[in-house]
C-alpha cells in the first residue's frame, strides 16, 4: 500500500483544539490552539501526531497556505514551502475522514519542521507526537464536545516526560473516528475501574497486520453507524429532503399568461410589478405637486480615520466609546486600511460596539466553532451523497465557476494557486450550509471578495459576510424582492430630485431604472475600483447620514450623467450602454460628496412626501438612531425588510394596491 519512503497518513482530522488555560502555567489564559490530529504510518510504526495550525485562534495573524480543501485547485502544485504539508495529506486514503480543513494564511513564511514536528520550533510548541506503542491509555470525556487525554507509558519520553500531554478538544467532532482508526492498530479496552478510560495495548506486528484486514470491514460498519448518530448528520438529513425540490428551470413562474406587449420596458414593468409609477389615476396614489427642494448644500469630505484615532475610541477594556462621533468620522472620511480589519467587524455588527476585548475573544472562539461545524457539513458529504443532491451540486458548480471569475486581477485572488480562491470557495460553500434556502446566487462572490481581502481570515470573513448578507439577502431571493423594492424607491427619489430627468428616462422607457440593476445588486462592486469599493462600503455601513444612503449614491451618479444622456438624446439601449460603461470611471469621493449634499438637501425640505421620508428613515430615527448602538447581534436582514416600500410590506403588488405608498408627482 504505502511507499517505503513516504509516511502514510491513515487518519487526519482538523479542528482539534488545545485549551491552554488548562495548562498549568496560567500565563496564556485565553489561548485556544487549533490544529490537526493525525495517525501516521511510518514504515509500519504507527504514530499519533498533533500539529497546531496557527499559533492561536487570534486570527490577526494570517498565514501562507493551508491545504487543499476543495476541487478548486491542486495544492500539490503549490510552489515552495507551502506544498510541504499539503502533499502528505493527499496520501490519506480515508478521504471521508479528511474533512474540515481550515485554510489560512500566514504573513510570515511557514517555518517547516521538515515533517519531524520539532519541538524546538516556537510556533510548534503545542505540537506533539508519540508512537502508539508508547501509549498507555486514553481517557474520553464529554463536555458538550469530546476531549481526549493521553497517558503514555512511563518509559517513553515523547518530549518532556514529566509534563502530561495537553487534552485534545474535538470541537468539530471526530473523536470517535479517531478512536476507530486507532483501533486498527491497537486494542482499546475499557479499564475495569473507569469506563471513560481506554487501555491501549498494541499487538505485535504480524497480528496488527491481520487486524487491519479484519477491521477494515468492521470499521466500515462502524462508520455508518457513527454517521447516523452524529449531530451534523441529522442536519444533512434534513436538507436531503429538499433534493426533491424541482428547479422548474425554464417554465415561466412569472405567470405571464397574457402575452406581454411589444416593448421591453413593458415587459420589465410586468416583471417588476409596481413600476408603472406614472399612472397617477391608480387609486392609492399620493398625488403630490412638484416640491421645491432648495439649493443643494456643498459639503467636504475628510481624511480617513487613522489607527491612532481608532484606539482613542477604545476604553481600557476594549469597549468602543464615543461611537456616534466615531461613525461620523468614518462616514466623512472612511478608514485607513490598517484599521479596516478590526473596524469592519464592528461596522458590520459581528462585534458589538460595547463588548470588551475579552468578550470578543470568547465570541470569536464560539464563532470559530460554529463556522467549522458548518464547514464540516459540506466537507463530509460524500461523492455518492452529492450525486443525489442536485441543489448542493448546483451550488458547488456555480461557486467554482464564479470564484474563478471574481477579482482575478487583485493580488489576493490572482494566479492559479492562490489560496485566496480556496477561501472564497470554502466560505461560500459554508454559507450555503448557513442558509441552504438561499444557497449561492451570482453576485455573492463579489460581496465576499472585499471582505475576505480585508479580514485575511476565513472565520472572521465568513461572519462579516453573514452580516453583510443580512442586509443584502432580499436582493438574491427567488423573487428578487429586494431589487424590485430598491428600484421603486430609487425611482421615487429621482422623481423628487429631478423630475425633468426622470420624465426623460420615462419617455425612453427607462423610468424603472433597470440600468441600475448591477449597482444595486452588488452595491457598486463592479462600478468602482477595488479600493474605492472598500471606501464606499465602510461609509455605507455607518448607517449615516440616513437610511438607504446607497440610493442617494445612485442619484448622485445619475445626476452627473443626466446632462450627457439628455443632450445626446440617448434611447433605451444607449442609456443602458452608457451606464454599463461608467464602470471603473467613477470618482468615489466626488460621488460621496454629492450624495451627502443630496441627503442634506432632502432633509431640509419641509413638506417631504411621506414615501420619501420612509425610504430615508427620517421618521424612525427620531428615537435617536441608536447612537451608541446596543451592539446586539444584528437582527436578521434589518434594513431592507423595514424599507420594503417604506412600510415593511413584503409584496409590492399588494402594497401598491391598498395603501398610499406610491407617489405620483405632477409637474
Amino acid at each position: 500500500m504505502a511507499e517505503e519512503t513516504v509516511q502514510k497518513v491513515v487518519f487526519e482530522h482538523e479542528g482539534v483544539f488545545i485549551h491552554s488555560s488548562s495548562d498549568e502555567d496560567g500565563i496564556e489564559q485565553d489561548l485556544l490552539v487549533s490544529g490537526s490530529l493525525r495517525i501516521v504510518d511510518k514504515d509500519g510504526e504507527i504514530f499519533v501526531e498533533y500539529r497546531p495550525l496557527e499559533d492561536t485562534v487570534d486570527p490577526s495573524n494570517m498565514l501562507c497556505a493551508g491545504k487543499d480543501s476543495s476541487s478548486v485547485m491542486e495544492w500539490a502544485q503549490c510552489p515552495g514551502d507551502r506544498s510541504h504539508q499539503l502533499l502528505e495529506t493527499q496520501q490519506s486514503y480515508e478521504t471521508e475522514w479528511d474533512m474540515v480543513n481550515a485554510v489560512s494564511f500566514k504573513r510570515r513564511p511557514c517555518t517547516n519542521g521538515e515533517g519531524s514536528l520539532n519541538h524546538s520550533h516556537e510556533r510548534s510548541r503545542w505540537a506533539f507526537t508519540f508512537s502508539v506503542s508508547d501509549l498507555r491509555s486514553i481517557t474520553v470525556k464529554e463536555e458538550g464536545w469530546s476531549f481526549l487525554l493521553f497517558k503514555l507509558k512511563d518509559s517513553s519520553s515523547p518530549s518532556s516526560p514529566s509534563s502530561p500531554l495537553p487534552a485534545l478538544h474535538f470541537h468539530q467532532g471526530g473523536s470517535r473516528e479517531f478512536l476507530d482508526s486507532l483501533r486498527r492498530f491497537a486494542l482499546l479496552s475499557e479499564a475495569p475501574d473507569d469506563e471513560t478510560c481506554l487501555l491501549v495495548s498494541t499487538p505485535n506486528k504480524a497480528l496488527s497486520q491481520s487486524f487491519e484486514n479484519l477491521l477494515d470491514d468492521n470499521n466500515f460498519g462502524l462508520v455508518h453507524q457513527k454517521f447516523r448518530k452524529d449531530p451534523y448528520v441529522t442536519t444533512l438529513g434534513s436538507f436531503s429532503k429538499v433534493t426533491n425540490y424541482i428547479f422548474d428551470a425554464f417554465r415561466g413562474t412569472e405567470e405571464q399568461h397574457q402575452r406581454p406587449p411589444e416593448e421591453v420596458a413593458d415587459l420589465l414593468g410586468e416583471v417588476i410589478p409596481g413600476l408603472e409609477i406614472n399612472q397617477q389615476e391608480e387609486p392609492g396614489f399620493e398625488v403630490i405637486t412638484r416640491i421645491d427642494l432648495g439649493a443643494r448644500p456643498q459639503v467636504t469630505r475628510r481624511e480617513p480615520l487613522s489607527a491612532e484615532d481608532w484606539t482613542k475610541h477604545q476604553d481600557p477594556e476594549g469597549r468602543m466609546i464615543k461611537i456616534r462621533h466615531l461613525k461620523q468620522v468614518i462616514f466623512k472620511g472612511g478608514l485607513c486600511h490598517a484599521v479596516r480589519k478590526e473596524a469592519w467587524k464592528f461596522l458590520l455588527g459581528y462585534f458589538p460596539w460595547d463588548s470588551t476585548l475579552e468578550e470578543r475573544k470568547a465570541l470569536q472562539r464560539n464563532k470559530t466553532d460554529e463556522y467549522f461545524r458548518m464547514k464540516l457539513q459540506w466537507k463530509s458529504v460524500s461523492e455518492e451523497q452529492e450525486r443525489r443532491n442536485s441543489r448542493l451540486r448546483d451550488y458547488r458548480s456555480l461557486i467554482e465557476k464564479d470564484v474563478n471569475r471574481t477579482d482575478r486581477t487583485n493580488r489576493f485572488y490572482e494566479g492559479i494557486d492562490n489560496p485566496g480562491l480556496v477561501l472564497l470557495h470554502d466560505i461560500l460553500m459554508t454559507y450555503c450550509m448557513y442558509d441552504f434556502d438561499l444557497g449561492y446566487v451570482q453576485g455573492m462572490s463579489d460581496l465576499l471578495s472585499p471582505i475576505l481581502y480585508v479580514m485575511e481570515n476565513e472565520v472572521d470573513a465568513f461572519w462579516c459576510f453573514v452580516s453583510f448578507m443580512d442586509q443584502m439577502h432580499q436582493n438574491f431571493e427567488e423573487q428578487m424582492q429586494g431589487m424590485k423594492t430598491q428600484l421603486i424607491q430609487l425611482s421615487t427619489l429621482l422623481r423628487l430630485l429631478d423630475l425633468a430627468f426622470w420624465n426623460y428616462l420615462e419617455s425612453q422607457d427607462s423610468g424603472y431604472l433597470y440600468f441600475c440593476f448591477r449597482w444595486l445588486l452588488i452595491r457598486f462592486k463592479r462600478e468602482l475600483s477595488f479600493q474605492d469599493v472598500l471606501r464606499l462600503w465602510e461609509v455605507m455601513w455607518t448607517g449615516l447620514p440616513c437610511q438607504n444612503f446607497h440610493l442617494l449614491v445612485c442619484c448622485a451618479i445619475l445626476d452627473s450623467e443626466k446632462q450627457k444622456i439628455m443632450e445626446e438624446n440617448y434611447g433605451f439601449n444607449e442609456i443602458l450602454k452608457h451606464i454599463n460603461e461608467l464602470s471603473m470611471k467613477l470618482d468615489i469621493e466626488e460621488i460621496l460628496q454629492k450624495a451627502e449634499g443630496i441627503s442634506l438637501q432632502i432633509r431640509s425640505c419641509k413638506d417631504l412626501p411621506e414615501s420619501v421620508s420612509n425610504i430615508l428613515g427620517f421618521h424612525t430615527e427620531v428615537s435617536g438612531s441608536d447612537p451608541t448602538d446596543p451592539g446586539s447581534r444584528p437582527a436578521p436582514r434589518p434594513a431592507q425588510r423595514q424599507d420594503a416600500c417604506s412600510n415593511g410590506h413584503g409584496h409590492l403588488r399588494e402594497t401598491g394596491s391598498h395603501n398610499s405608498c406610491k407617489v405620483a408627482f405632477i409637474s
Partner: protein
Amino acid sequence: MTTKTSLLKVILLGDGGVGKSSIMNRYVTNKFDAHLFHTIGVEFLNKDLEVDGHQVTLQIWDTAGQERFRSLRTPFYRGSDCCLLTFSVDDNQSFLNLGNWKKEFIYYADVKEPEKFPFVVLGNKLDVTERQVSAEEAQQWCQENGDYPYYETSAKDATNVAIAFEEAVRRVLAMDERTDHLIPTDTVKLHRKPRSATTCCS
C-alpha cells in the same frame, strides 16, 4: 440607391460559464480576457461588418446564465433577429440544457414561427482537451432540432468565432429576403425598432 445598413440584434444564450461574454469580447474587440467577471445584468456591444455585400451593424446581447436572473434577462429577448445557443464542449450539462434555452427564448421572444427562427449553435472551448460532448452528438442535436448550423468555437484562440457570427447574419438576411418577397416593403431597415441603437446611415 444608397447603401443600406441593417441593424441586427443577436443574443447569446447558454449556461453560466460556457463563455458567452468571452465569445462576444473576442468577436468585438478581438481580445480574450481570462480575468473576466461573470456577467451581472445585461450588456451589449455593437459591431459593424459586411456580409455578402450587405452592411450590417450587429448588436450582440449578453446576459447572465444563472436561473435566478431569468426574469431580468428575458425581457431583452424580444426583437432578436437571431439567437446563438451556446454550450461548452467540456461541460455536458450545458449541452443538455440547450433545449431549455431554446424553449425559454422562443417563449419570451414571442417568436411567431419557431420552426423558422434562425438559431445558431456554438460549442465553445474547443481548445480544451477534456471534451465531454462530441462533435457528432452536437451535430445530431442540431439536425434533430431544426437543422441549425453548428460551430465549434474557441473564444480563447479565436477559432470560428467570426465565422459563426457571419453565418448568423447570413441566416437572418436569408430569412428577410424570403419575407421581403412576401411583403414588398421599404428595404431600408434602419431603426427597425423605434429606439434601438442609432447606427449611422449613409
